[in-house]
Every structure is written in C-alpha cells, then in structure tokens.
C-alpha cells in the first residue's frame, strides 16, 4: 500500500488513477480532503446542509419536461445551441461548477472516457459552466476533453434551470484563501455557483434522465448516462419535431 497523498493535488491524481467507479473516485478524493483540509470539508458539509434545507423538493427541470433552450459560446467563441445538438441525436448536458472544481474535473474526465460510447449511441456531450473561455480553453486541452465547454456568463442559463446558489461569505473566504478566484473566472462579481447536474435530453427536447447533485461531491455515474442513452435507443422512436435528416435513420434502428 503506497503512502497516503500529502496534498489535495496528489489526492486528485490518486483518485483519478483508481480503477473504480466515478462514485468511488469522488469518495476517495473527498476522504482525502477530510483528512488534509478538515476546514474545507466542514464548510462544504454546512453549505450542502443549508442548500438541502432550502431546496427540500426536486430542484431543476424534471424528467419528461423540456430542457430550456440555450445559445452559449464555446471555448472558441462559437455559439452552441441545444437545438443544434439535438439535430443529430440526444444530448448529454452537464452543468458544472467551474474549471477549478476537483469534483467536476473527475466527473468530466470520466465522461471523456466514455465519450466514444456516447457518440456510438448517437449522442453529443456539452459541459456548461460559469467560467469564461480564458479558463475553459486551457481546461479542455489539459484534461483532453473531447466535447465543448460552454460559458454561462452571469449564470443566466443556470438560473433558468433553478440551479444557482449563493456561495456565501464563509465559502468565499475559503476560496480566496486557496486561490479560487471566482470573480476572475466568471468575469463578474463571482458570488454564485450552479449546482452540479446532468440532463440526458432526447431528440424531442424532453429530459429522459437527470441527476441534480445538491451534494456536489457526488455525481451521476457514467454507466447511468450510458444506460439512459441505451434505453433511449431501445425505446420506440418518437417522431422528432421539425425537419428530419439522415441521422434519424441511425436513431430509429
């Protein structure tokens, strides 16, 4: 058994290397933070408890409802819309906290690992976070993400989904101390974050599966994403709205 990680950076590398489910890797990193930075772990516990208390019910759009449309700039300045993504198949829309969040990093890398399978199922992936392209561009290459990361400036889209929360002075102080500069990353005053969430959207624009994690240290298992997409394939095809195109053939098979 090797030595336990001495820094959060090491802990993240360690968690990443583990040949285990995403949940196990997230839990491994989380345990390291409890040991290395009990103050962070405690503040996060309090934050999550506060959010859980307020948002007792189901947060965000539900399964069967349409995911609100978006037009957001990607890391290269191109505008990406939900409608354009859905033209060729279902979409996996990942709402993420930011390029600095270790839990999002673990999650998005695990999505990258199954990206080929997602594509084979005809679907496309996007991550949406409040950070500007000055940060998402480097993040994509550093983590070899094969999908675009869209900038939700001022968290407008996340608010539309009912997913934003006030970071609060305690966590803000902590972020300042550890060098997480939300103001610079988000290009505004940086007081809000979105809740981590995943929506699997069918070509009809309706949400087929979802997971909203008020407890942002937990995420939807990649296997669950694939299962949802497989179920979509197996399900009798719904006639998509709008124009049909060639990719529909694949969709119907």
């Amino acid at each position: 058994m090797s030595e336990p990680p001495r820094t959060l950076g090491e802990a993240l590398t360690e968690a990443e290397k583990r040949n285990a489910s995403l949940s196990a890797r997230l839990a491994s990193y989380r345990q390291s933070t409890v040991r290395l930075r009990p103050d962070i772990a405690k503040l996060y516990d309090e934050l999550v408890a506060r959010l859980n208390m307020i948002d007792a019910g189901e947060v965000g759009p539900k399964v069967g409802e349409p995911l609100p449309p978006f037009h957001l700039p990607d890391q290269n300045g191109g505008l990406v819309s939900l409608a354009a993504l859905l033209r060729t198949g279902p979409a996996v829309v990942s709402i993420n906290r930011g390029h600095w969040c270790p839990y999002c990093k673990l999650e998005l890398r695990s999505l990258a690992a199954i990206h080929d399978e997602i594509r084979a199922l005809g679907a496309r992936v996007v991550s949406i976070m409040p950070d500007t392209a000055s940060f998402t561009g480097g993040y994509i290459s550093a983590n070899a993400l094969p999908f675009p990361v869209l900038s939700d400036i001022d968290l407008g889209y996340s608010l539309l989904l009912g997913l934003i929360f006030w970071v609060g002075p305690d966590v803000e102080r902590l972020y300042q101390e550890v060098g997480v500069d939300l103001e610079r990353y988000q290009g505004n005053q940086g007081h809000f974050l979105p809740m981590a969430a995943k929506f699997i959207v069918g070509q009809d624009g309706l949400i087929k599966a979802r997971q909203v994690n008020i407890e942002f240290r937990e995420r939807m298992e990649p296997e669950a994403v694939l299962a949802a997409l497989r179920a979509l394939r197996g399900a009798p095809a719904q006639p998509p709205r709008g124009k049909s195109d060639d990719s529909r053939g694949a969709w119907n098979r």
Partner: protein
Amino acid sequence: MEMHQVRYFLAVARTLNFTKAAEECHVAQPSLTRAIKLLEGELGGDLFRRERPRAMLTPLGERMYPLLKQCYDSAQSARALAAMINEGEVGVLKIAVSSSIELSLIVNEVNELRRSITEIDLKILRGTGAQIVGYLKSGEAEMAIGTSIGAAWDRLDSWTLFDEAFDMVFSRAHRLASQEAIALDDLKPERFLLRNHCERCADLAKLLADNGLNADHRHEVSSDQDLLALLDANIGIGFLPRTVTAPPSLVRTAVPGLKIERTVCLYGVAGRQRTPVATTFMKMLRAAKWSSKLA
C-alpha cells in the same frame, strides 16, 4: 434559487411595496411573500425591512440587488432569444465602436450570432469616446466598445475585454528606420502625429511633453486611415495600439521611456432594458478568450 423568487425580489426592490410587486408579477401576495422568505433563507438574512405598506432594502438586499438583477437579465435574455428564434423574428444589433478600435476584433462574434440567429440587422456607429457615450445616452446604441469612457457617465456598466500597449510607428523611409535602438533624445526633432479619435490622445500628448518631446507642434488626424496615409508618405511619427494593423511599409517599435497602454472595455447602460440579441452578444464578448484572439 428559482427564477420566480428572483423575479419577485426584483419587483419588490423596484416598487418597494409588496402589494404593488405582487400585482406587477400577477401573483397573490402571500405567494410572493413566501417566495421571498425562501430566498432570504437561502441568502441567510432579510432582504427587506417591512415598514407597512412600504418595504425598504436591507444592506444585504442592496448588495444582492445588482447581482441578482444581472443574473436575472441574463436568464431572461436567454429565454427571450429562444422565443425570438422560434418565431423567426429579425434581431437588431446596435453597437457603438470607438474609431480607435478595429472592427475586425468583433467580426467573428457578429458572424457567430448571424449563424445562430437566422437574421440580424447590424448598426455599427463610430466616433470618439465622447460620441460613443452620446450614442449610448440617446439609445442609438445598446452597447459600446471603447476605452477610458467609464467616468464619462455614472450609468455606464463596464467590463474589461483586454489590455494592450501602443507601438511607435513610422515609415521605413524615415531616418530612424535604419537605427537599431531609438532613444528619447533621437525623437527631439520629430513632429508627432496624434490620433484625435483615440481616447488616450490627451494622455499621449502629456506623455510626450513630460518627456521633453514636441507635443505642441504636431499633426492631428481623426481616423486611422488618415494616420496610415500620412505615415506611409513619411509624414510624422505615430503611435498605434497593437490591435490596429499597419502595412509592412511601416516600422512598429517600442521606445524605452515612452510606454502607453489602453484597456479596451465593453460598455452598457446600467438598468436599461436590452434586446436579447444585444445581451447575448455582450455575453459572447465577455466570454471570449481575448488573449488568443489578439495573438
């Protein structure tokens, strides 16, 4: 937090009256009060002091108002843009750009917008710093791109896009062109070309004077086209921001001791309703990675 909670909060903050706000939002007052209570729970404090029938913003409420307004406007414009596209409406983009800034800096974003939103009508207004503030004031432009105009009007919201330095520029036929390094003293006999259309013009003149250079006898232009024409004919020495392109017939160089920079910003009018197209475009400019656009 939820969209409707924020909407109710903003309505009360605007009307300072729960009854009026409820009417404005077409909602029963108890529902509005309940929603605001929930928001207060999330933000960890009261947003209003209730002094019936009036409501006053608490310091927390004052602090949250601009933040939530910004976030709400962003959400609202996302929704409105989708509706617009759905209905095949033609969008309008009215933007004032300082004459000291090349339009090519934003052309990619304009094209992305055109590609995504079937049709937009463009209106590009040009002028000096004072003129683009004027366009914003009159509503002829919904946003502006310029430098150092933030202090000109207290209702301006501004976002920094990028910083850049100015180069000294002169003809390859100029006597200094063959010189390897240029010192301040070499510039003493020179006559400079000042860009009157640039917001930093007065600062540049002062910088020249402070360095003992001739800022009184000078040439003045009010467009980069004219500046380049004069420089090309070897008339005077000019200063150009890095993002303004010059033909290869000109020398661009830095002179130690003559350092001038500018911060290019995006401006909008605080509190004024913008079209969804304008809001989307502003968010695109704010999201862009300017360092790689400029490289």
